[in-house]
C-alpha cells in the first residue's frame, strides 16, 4: 500500500525510466509480450508501485550505474535492474543477490558477451552461499536444480532478462545458440551448507566463512549421474569420472570446466571416508586423465578428437582448476548432477567462474 501511495504521488517524478503508456482496457502482460520484453514466459508488469518496492530491497541508489550490459554495452542503472527484477518475479529482498550476480557477470573474465553469443548451450549459472540463502528461502535440497522455489527461479531469470532487455541480447540476434537449453531461462540454486565439515564453495574460492556470496559459472544442465552400487570414495570417483569425460564429447579435452552437484547420499560416501572438497576435486581431476592414443581424431573410427601429435601423452579432461564440487539435493537418491561448462574454456585464464560477496 505504501508503494502504491508513493507511486501515485511521487513515482512519476523520481523514477527515471521511460513510461510506456497503454490503454486502460489492455492486458499489461500482453503489452510486455508485444514489446518483446519477455523470455517467452509471462512477466510481472513493471508498474511504478512494484518498481519502487523493489528498489527498497537495496541501499544502492536508483541512478547508480552498475555497468554496461552486452551485447549492446548499454549502461544499466539500479533502477533498470529493479524493473527487470519485478518482471522476473523477484521479491525486494532478492535484490542484493541479483546485484552481486550482475556484478560478477560483468567481470571481464566472466565473458558475458561470449556466453550470450556462443553457438553452445551455456548461460550464467548462479550458486548462492552463506546466510542470505536461508534468509530469502532459497532451495538447496529436494529438487534444488528444478522448479518450485521463487528465489531460485526468479533471481536467475532476472539476470537473463537484464541481458535481454538492457543489453539487447535476443535469440537469433546476438544470441546464436544452435539449440539453447532450458537453463537459459534460469539456473540458480543454493549450496547445502548443513554439514559444518564441508567447505562452502565461496570459502574455497577465497571468501571468509559466514559471508553471503554468489558464484557465477558459464554452463548448462543438469546432466544426470547415477551410481547406486559404488560404496567407496575411490569407486565413486572412478564412476563420476566416466560421466565427466563425456561432457561436450568424450574425445574433447581441456576445453570446458564442470560443476559436480554432489547429492547427500553420494557425499556421505566421501564424508565417511574423511574426504574433503580439495581431495574430491583433485581425485576427480586425476581420474579424468586418459591416454592420448584413445582420444586422437579418428581413434575408434570417430572423427572427433585431439591432434595425432598428442597420442603419446596422458591427457587430462580438465584444467587443474576446472572442477568445482557443490553440495545440493534431497536426502534420498544415489544420484548426482553434472553442470557442463562452456567449451570455449581452452584458455584457462581468459574464461573463469567469478565469485562475489553479496553486500547491498
Amino acid at each position, binding site marked *: 500500500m505504501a508503494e502504491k501511495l508513493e507511486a501515485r504521488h511521487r513515482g512519476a517524478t523520481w523514477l527515471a525510466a521511460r513510461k510506456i503508456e497503454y490503454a*486502460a482496457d489492455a492486458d*499489461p502482460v500482453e503489452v510486455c509480450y508485444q514489446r518483446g*520484453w519477455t523470455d517467452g514466459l509471462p512477466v510481472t508488469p513493471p508498474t511504478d508501485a512494484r518498481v519502487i518496492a523493489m528498489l527498497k530491497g537495496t541501499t544502492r541508489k536508483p541512478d547508480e550505474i552498475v555497468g554496461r550490459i552486452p551485447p549492446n554495452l548499454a549502461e544499466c542503472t539500479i533502477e533498470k535492474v529493479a524493473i527487470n527484477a519485478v518482471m522476473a518475479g523477484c521479491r525486494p529482498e532478492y535484490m542484493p543477490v541479483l546485484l552481486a550476480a550482475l556484478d560478477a557477470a560483468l567481470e571481464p573474465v566472466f565473458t558475458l558477451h561470449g556466453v550470450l553469443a556462443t553457438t553452445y548451450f551455456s548461460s550464467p549459472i548462479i550458486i548462492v552461499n552463506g546466510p542470505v540463502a536461508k534468509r530469502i528461502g532459497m532451495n538447496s535440497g529436494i529438487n534444488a536444480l528444478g522448479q518450485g522455489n521463487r528465489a531460485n527461479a526468479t533471481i536467475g531469470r532476472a539476470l537473463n532478462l537484464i541481458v535481454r532487455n*538492457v543489453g539487447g541480447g535476443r535469440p537469433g540476434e546476438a544470441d546464436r545458440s544452435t539449440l539453447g537449453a532450458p537453463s537459459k531461462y534460469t539456473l540458480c540454486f543454493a549450496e547445502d551448507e548443513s554439514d559444518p565439515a564441508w567447505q562452502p564453495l565461496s570459502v574455497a574460492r577465497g571468501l571468509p566463512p559466514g559471508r553471503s556470496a554468489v558464484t557465477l559459472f558459464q554452463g548448462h544442465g543438469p546432466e544426470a549421474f547415477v551410481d547406486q552400487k559404488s560404496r567407496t570414495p575411490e569407486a565413486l570417483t572412478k564412476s563420476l569420472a566416466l560421466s565427466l569425460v563425456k561432457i561436450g564429447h568424450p574425445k574433447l579435452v581441456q576445453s570446458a570446466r564442470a560443476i559436480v552437484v554432489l547429492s547427500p547420499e553420494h557425499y556421505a560416501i566421501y564424508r565417511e571416508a574423511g574426504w574433503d572438497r580439495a581431495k574430491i576435486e583433485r581425485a576427480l581431476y586425476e581420474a579424468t586423465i586418459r591416454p592420448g592414443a584413445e582420444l586422437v581424431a579418428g581413434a575408434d573410427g570417430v572423427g572427433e578428437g585431439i591432434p595425432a601429435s598428442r597420442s603419446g601423452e596422458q591427457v587430462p579432461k580438465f584444467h587443474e582448476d576446472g572442477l568445482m564440487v557443490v553440495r545440493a539435493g534431497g536426502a534420498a537418491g544415489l544420484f548426482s548432477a553434472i553442470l557442463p561448462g562452456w567449451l570455449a574454456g581452452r584458455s584457462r585464464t581468459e574464461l573463469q567462474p567469478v565469485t562475489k560477496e553479496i553486500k547491498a
Partner: protein
Amino acid sequence: MNTWLRDPTAETEAVMRARRPPPKSLDGLTVGLFDIGKTRSDEFLNQIEKRLTERGIRSKRYGKPTNAKVATREIVDQVVSGADVVLIALSD
C-alpha cells in the same frame, strides 16, 4: 484513460547504416584475414591466404586470442588502418 509501465530496456534505438558497397576488384587492395580465435581458424585462413597470394592479392593477418571475448577497440583500429577489406573467419 491510459496507464503505464516502466521501460526495462536501455531506451536506445538501433541505427541502421547502409553497408559500404563491396569493391569491384581486389586489385591493389589489402585483404585483412581476421581469426576470431577458434581452434582451426588458422587452417582455413592459411588456405585463403594461399589462394589470394596465388592471385597476386596482398593480405594481412589479424586476430584475437579467444573467441570467448570480443575484439578490443585497439584490434579493430589496427584492422581499419591496415586493411581495405576484411574477411572474418571461424572454424572448429
